[in-house]
């Protein structure tokens, strides 16, 4: 039996090369025929496509399906759905770009600090993107009638060792809460008076506060509540507040922010700030600022889009060294905002501030505000403001504002 089996294997081994040659020749013929057929089918498909495009009619499924049915096995599984959202390839690697128009008008009499009757004031162009696996960057350009200014432009390293967060570039300082707000996120048309009088900038500026080129390092501290410490080092030039005569005349800001949820809907935030920098009298003359801010918010989660309330207040103490004396000035504001309905907000603000360069003079103001949100991308706001200036003049004004957002504008921190 074994002999027969071995003999058969030997015979097969001897005759198989010619058989393989014959098979190869037959296969070549078959492939040739198939190629011819594929070419013919391709030309038919091309003719059909041309005819369809010319006629504009829908494709006839029977024609296309016939050859496919011959190829497809009868038990083919249904096609898997394409998972994931629509591709964002159109904007791949480009930053999110947004523009926020800020059109402001004013009526009434103000002989001390009059807004223009109508102006496109400090519109904001933003570019925001992730730079690489280690950093993201945010650029906010303030585009006004007088030109373009980098309002903020910084890189953020969000994942440093030790849970630090570092920002480098030009940025709004964390000195008090409202200083960090961009104009379009304010619940009023103007900034509080204390920012003009004590935190730099002249009264006719639309945008004031401490914003400089520098570094900001912050960390959440281990505590039972949220406690964030921030230390900032700036170049030392911020409006009329700080002035660097030499490279070493840097300014510093420290901020401690605490936050606690009182209930699911209510929370309280309290912050303390300190800033120090050289002033325009000279390198040896320092201006110290101390700030205290408090914000109470209420927003019921089930009706978050219809009702909310917030009250905030900020107190600032200024100590400005001058040639012969030290000016000690104080200012504050207190405000409240209530959401009446999904689109309607109302609010009021009280301002009182001495002037940093002449603490014997003080200004005060009261405002009421009504805001209508056609959508979350636009706002229409009116503000009645009564201002009493140290010069003895009183200004009664009505300010109005149209804010409108185009493109992608990233969310602002809480």
């Amino acid at each position: 039996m074994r002999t027969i089996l071995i003999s058969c294997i030997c015979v097969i081994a001897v005759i198989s090369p010619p058989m393989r040659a014959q098979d190869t020749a037959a296969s070549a013929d078959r492939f040739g025929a198939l190629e011819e057929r594929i070419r013919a089918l391709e030309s038919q498909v091309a003719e059909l496509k041309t005819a369809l495009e010319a006629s504009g009619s829908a494709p006839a499924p029977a024609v296309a399906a016939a050859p496919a049915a011959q190829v497809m096995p009868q038990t083919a599984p249904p096609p898997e759905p394409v998972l994931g959202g629509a591709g964002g390839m159109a904007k791949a690697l480009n930053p999110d770009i947004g523009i926020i128009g800020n059109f402001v008008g004013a009526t009434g009499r103000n002989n001390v600090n009059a807004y223009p009757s109508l102006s496109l004031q400090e519109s904001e162009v933003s570019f925001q993107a992730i730079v690489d696996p280690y950093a993201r960057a945010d650029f906010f350009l303030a585009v006004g009638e007088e030109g373009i200014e980098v309002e903020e432009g910084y890189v953020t390293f969000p994942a440093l060792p030790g849970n630090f967060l570092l920002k480098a570039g030009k940025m709004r300082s964390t000195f008090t809460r409202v200083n960090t707000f961009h104009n379009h996120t304010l619940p009023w048309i103007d900034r509080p008076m204390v920012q003009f009088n004590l935190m730099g900038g002249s009264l006719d500026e639309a945008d004031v506060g401490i914003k400089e080129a520098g570094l900001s390092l912050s960390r959440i501290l281990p505590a039972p509540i949220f406690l964030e410490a921030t230390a900032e080092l700036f170049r030392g030039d911020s409006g009329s507040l700080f002035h660097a005569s030499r490279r070493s005349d840097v300014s510093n800001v420290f901020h401690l922010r605490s936050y606690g949820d009182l209930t699911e809907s209510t929370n309280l935030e309290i912050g303390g700030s300190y800033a120090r920098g050289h002033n325009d009298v000279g390198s040896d003359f320092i201006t110290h600022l101390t700030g205290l801010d408090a914000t109470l918010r209420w927003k019921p989660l089930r009706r978050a889009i219809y009702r909310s309330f917030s009250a905030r207040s900020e107190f600032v103490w200024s100590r400005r060294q001058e040639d012969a004396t030290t000016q000690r000035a104080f200012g504050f504001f207190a405000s409240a905002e209530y959401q009446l309905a999904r689109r309607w907000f109302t609010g009021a603000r009280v301002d009182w501030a001495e002037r940093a360069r002449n603490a014997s003079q003080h200004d005060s103001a009261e405002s009421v505000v009504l805001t209508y949100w056609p959508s979350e991308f636009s706002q229409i706001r009116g503000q009645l403001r009564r201002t009493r200036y140290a010069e003895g003049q009183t200004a009664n004004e009505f300010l109005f504002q149209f804010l409108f957002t185009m493109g992608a504008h990233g969310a602002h921190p809480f």
Partner: protein
Amino acid sequence: MNRQNAGFIQFAVAILVGLWWCIAPFSAAMAKTLNVMTSTEDLASLAREVGGQHATVESIARGYQDPHYVEAKPSFLLKLQKADLLVVVGLGLEIGWLPPLITQSRNARIQMSGGGYLDASTAAAILEKPSGPVTRAMGDVHPLGNPHYWLDPENGRRIAKAIAEKFAQLDPEDAAYFEQRYQDFERRLQEADKRWLEAMAPLKGTEVITYHNSWPSFTDHFGLRVGGFVEPKPGIPPSPAHTLEVINQIKKDQIKLILVEPYFDLKTPKAIAAQTGAQVLVMLPSVGGVPEVASYLQLFDYNIRLLQGALAGQK
């Protein structure tokens, strides 16, 4: 450098040293229990199904909250800072509040580039991907597709599988445990889905009005048809003219049901119902919308029971 400056720089250095001193010790090794944060309760429920005792899971948004509008409270940062994994819905649903939380969390793991970031939409079948131009004239549209995709049980299965795979990456020692938990969840989900489809069979083809465009994945899976919306456009509150259009449409097409999410005002839906005889149903788009709906499976049980009750009431 004058004495004032020198003193102040010393002070600044002391502050920075103090901050460094406060550094919590780094976790030397991967914890055996994964610390998982999710943006919504639905993802949290799916993560709990898969993670079992090897994952502690918490959601940022509550189930009765509109997930488009969540406050990015600093208290969330304390939780995100310690998270091994963040699971998000994606497709722009959380774009108004989540990105600053991620950046400020100071947690390298959950940054988009980190290994602990999972966008659940990448695993799901997404409906309504725009094929033409998208502008804000369409309202608050989502250019990447409808983000309420978890309301299709099949997507729930896909998300759970993606979470199980991510868990296995982060905690390879417990990979078999997560796989077994996923298999068990898949089996229970399939059984439940069979039951839900049977229960919904009498409602197949029923036309409904919904407040917001939250339900395409749900209605697609269960064979309902959405005839229109109470909102004239996504994110735009109902206007009198549009409300009148909806009333006329309901009368013309004899639509019987108006589905409303729990975070929307019922005033307009009830006014429409009063004019047309349609029934308003407060359906839950998320786990936790009411206390008794504590899991992904219970979410469908609840909604389908509501729809069945409405159908029985109409007979």
